[in-house]
């Protein structure tokens, strides 16, 4: 049922597909989840190699965000197993998965309205270092250190928020909030960055900037990127491999060109007559 598999992607007995031919960083096997009587995901298997950029596309309601939530620990799948870098994640809470190196952005922006962009980065930096003991605060050792501030400045520059760093995010536009989310995720120096429709609500220039940032962190820092996106131009420019979901199942997988020409994908997006 899978579409064309191209490049160096390899399949295995369970249907999981790993790009780049190396040991999988993320390995999700036969993930199913039911909401009441409705199956939102049906035995989805997805594998990603370190440093690989994968696009997850599909019509609304296909199960993309649900799969994200299962991988990050916000939802527990009804069956199936997820492992990351050799660790089985099934019973692991969301914050432990984040500490292993999985960071995400959200489809509906989730920022901390009372904090500035800089504070967002500092919180992320602190969380990455696991430095949140109460006794340190009580001994006045809770202030940001110079090296932390330096890293925060780097990330603010990378996502283009240096000029707005000290404005409470409640006063920022949707586009800037998406950049804050991205910067916050990048501050955690993840090995897998999961971006959920990051271009939604952005104009063309902002979308192009965002795609550029994603490409650069993937290439320069070797960060794996899993991108859920409706903007096909952004998908084309930001990922190596595309996985197409429809009603909770993978219907195609491969390079961008092979997937957009896949008959099953065209049927899913355009209807039977396509």
């Amino acid at each position: 049922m899978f579409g064309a598999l191209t490049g160096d992607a390899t399949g295995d007995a369970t249907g999981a597909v790993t790009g780049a031919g190396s040991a999988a960083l993320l390995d999700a096997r036969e993930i199913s989840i039911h909401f009441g009587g409705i199956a939102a995901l049906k035995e989805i298997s997805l594998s990603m190699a370190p440093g690989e950029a994968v696009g997850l596309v599909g019509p609304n309601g296909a199960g993309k965000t649900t799969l994200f939530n299962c991988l990050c620990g916000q939802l527990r799948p009804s069956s199936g197993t997820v492992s990351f870098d050799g660790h089985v994640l099934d019973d692991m809470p969301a914050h432990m998965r984040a500490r292993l190196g999985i960071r995400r952005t959200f489809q509906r922006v989730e920022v901390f309205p009372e904090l500035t962009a800089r504070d967002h980065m500092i919180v992320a930096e602190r969380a990455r270092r696991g430095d949140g003991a109460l006794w340190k605060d009580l001994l006045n050792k809770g202030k940001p250190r110079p090296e932390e501030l330096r890293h925060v400045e780097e990330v603010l520059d990378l996502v283009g928020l240096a000029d707005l760093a000290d404005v409470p995010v409640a006063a920022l536009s949707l586009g800037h909030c998406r950049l804050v989310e991205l910067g916050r995720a990048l501050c955690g120096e993840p090995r897998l960055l999961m971006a959920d429709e990051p271009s939604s609500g952005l104009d063309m220039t902002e979308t192009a900037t965002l795609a550029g940032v994603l490409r650069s962190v993937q290439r320069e820092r070797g960060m794996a990127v899993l991108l859920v996106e409706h903007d096909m131009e952004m998908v084309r420019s930001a990922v190596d491999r595309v996985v197409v979901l429809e009603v909770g199942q993978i219907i195609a997988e491969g390079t961008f060109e092979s997937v957009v020409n896949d008959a099953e994908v065209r049927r899913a997006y355009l209807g039977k007559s396509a």
Partner: protein
Amino acid sequence: MSQFLSYAIPGIPYGCNFALMAVGLVLTFRATGVFNLAFGAQAFVSAFIFDLLVRSDHLPVGVAFIVSVLVFSPLLGLGLDRFLFRHIPSASTTAKLVSSLGLLIAIPQALPIFFGSGERENPPNLWLNPNHVYFHIFTTPINGGEVTTVVITVVVVAAVMAMFRWTGIGLQMRAVVESRRMAQLEGINAPRVAAGAWALSSVLAGLAGVLLLPLTATLNPEDPLQFTALLVAGLTAAAVASMRSLPIALAAGIGLGIVENLLAGYLPSGSVVAQTVVLNFPFVVLVGTLLLNPGLRQLELSSDPLAAVDPPPAPPSVSIRDRRLEVPTRVGFWLLVVGFLASSVTWVPADYVTAFAEGLCVSIICLSITLITGMSGQLSLCQAAFAGIGAFAAGQFAEHLGLPVLLGAVVGGLIAAVIGTVVAVVAVRVSGLLLALVTLAFAIFADQSLFQYSWTGGGLTGVTVPRPILGSINFGSDRAFLVLCFVALVLCSVLVLLVQRGTVGRYLAAMRGSPVAAASMGINLRTARLTVFAMSAGIAGFGGTLFASVLQHVSADQFTYEYSLVFVVVVITTGSRTIEGAIQAGMGFSVILLLLTLYLPTRFTGIEPILFAFGAMTYAAHPEGIVEYQKSRWMVRVSKLFNAYDERRARKAGSSLGQSAGTPDALREALPAVSVPLGDRFSG
């Protein structure tokens, strides 16, 4: 079997009272979106008026019923809607809970002002004579009061269910609760529907109050929370029904009544175990239901689809203070501190010194609320219970082990922190409204059960908490003790400030903004919540010990659950997010109480809680605190005055130095750093 029935059958009318309360809570929640803790207080007011009309004004029962339940009650509901809830339509469930807390405090306190404080014995009954046995079920006699309660409860609940399920107005009420703004976009007159819902809910409260009258031997305006047992049982039945299903609320209420009667019947009367089980059974069921009923989790998840149109949270007033005010503010602050201390230890009258010392101790307890509610966004309604635990522990250690009081305060604080952690381990499984209710259950449990034993709260007599002695310094005099309390408050303030500015404070701010995003960054929400809960309980316990040491004696009535509510209400009025808010709350609470006691008749002392309750009712509209909100407005006004002054100077300079200095750029440079949107925000 006949013994079982003789215990179970009287439980049915008893449980009907719980059921009516539960159905009222569920109905109010479904029709208005407010978890109305003041439902019992509303019931009490109507019952009181009914009693007054029948016995003082000698009106027939029917007429008194019409006036109190069908005229006064809906008017009260409409008044609450018009003056309170209409102004906070889009607030969260938790914020609206605070407003209802304000009502729960204010309504009963208002009663003695109008009706005096005399007890009213043997209130009248509504319909059939409770002293007459009408028939027997098996061998169990059924009296008129029981028939009245069961028949009216079943009829009323059936009518309300029918209205909700089959009428257009029922559908509109449900739509308005889901999203008032969406309903308005669909053409529903949401304010009118909400007003109708409040009137209906209030009629139900009035009816419950009048029906419950035969149960209460006396009506005491000074003990208006005598509906506590009903509140706990009503809450439990409403929680079993997931705040949704009216028939389940009815069944759960009756079921609770039956089980309580069976427990009281079968357990050996007079034994300590039986008393403990019967006393604590409702709390165990309530907490168990709040934690384990998955249907309740939906309450916090449902959100208004148009929530994004809400304005962003207000910044603290200090952040919008004009920089030219910084030096005068700082100088003024230090002058105030030095002046306060110097006056307190020299010329201030003794009454005021005691009130100031109490105020400093209450400020420490209020700081614990700043930590847990202001910083972490969790509404804890049991801080007075933690304060009491600290005070009783220190008192018991001093009395039985001879432990110095200051050390006792620290140990008491630690014990409170440990118990706080235990409560938190249970409570942090839930959040928002459910967390508030779990903590409220603990506060009522501590008040009614835990503090009543001789080994904890000293029973009726209480415990002695002597004044501390530190080396050669004796804090026996009020003035010396005030200085000690001041130092303790400064220490606690510094601790809270360090947490606020440190990593944990930032984590809490993140968690308050978006728990799901905070977890996705690697922040362990559970640990953060437990940490802040424990520290907050510890500070409350420490403050509670010092508070007890002011009067050198502590008893259970100083740390009742009403105090937990009052402390929260007071802090929320002044500002729960700042340390100065906590200090203003503590000092304001004690000093205003002293002034009222000194200069007004006894019946008017209830004015103070009413004042603060009014403040808390605005929480949903101004979560930063109404005092903090007013401060922000004044900051903006002062900034505007400075701006106008600068503009005039710039214009004058421009006219004397030539045109270039008067350009818009020069003007802009002369303006201080107060952003225009903030100015607009407060100018209205």
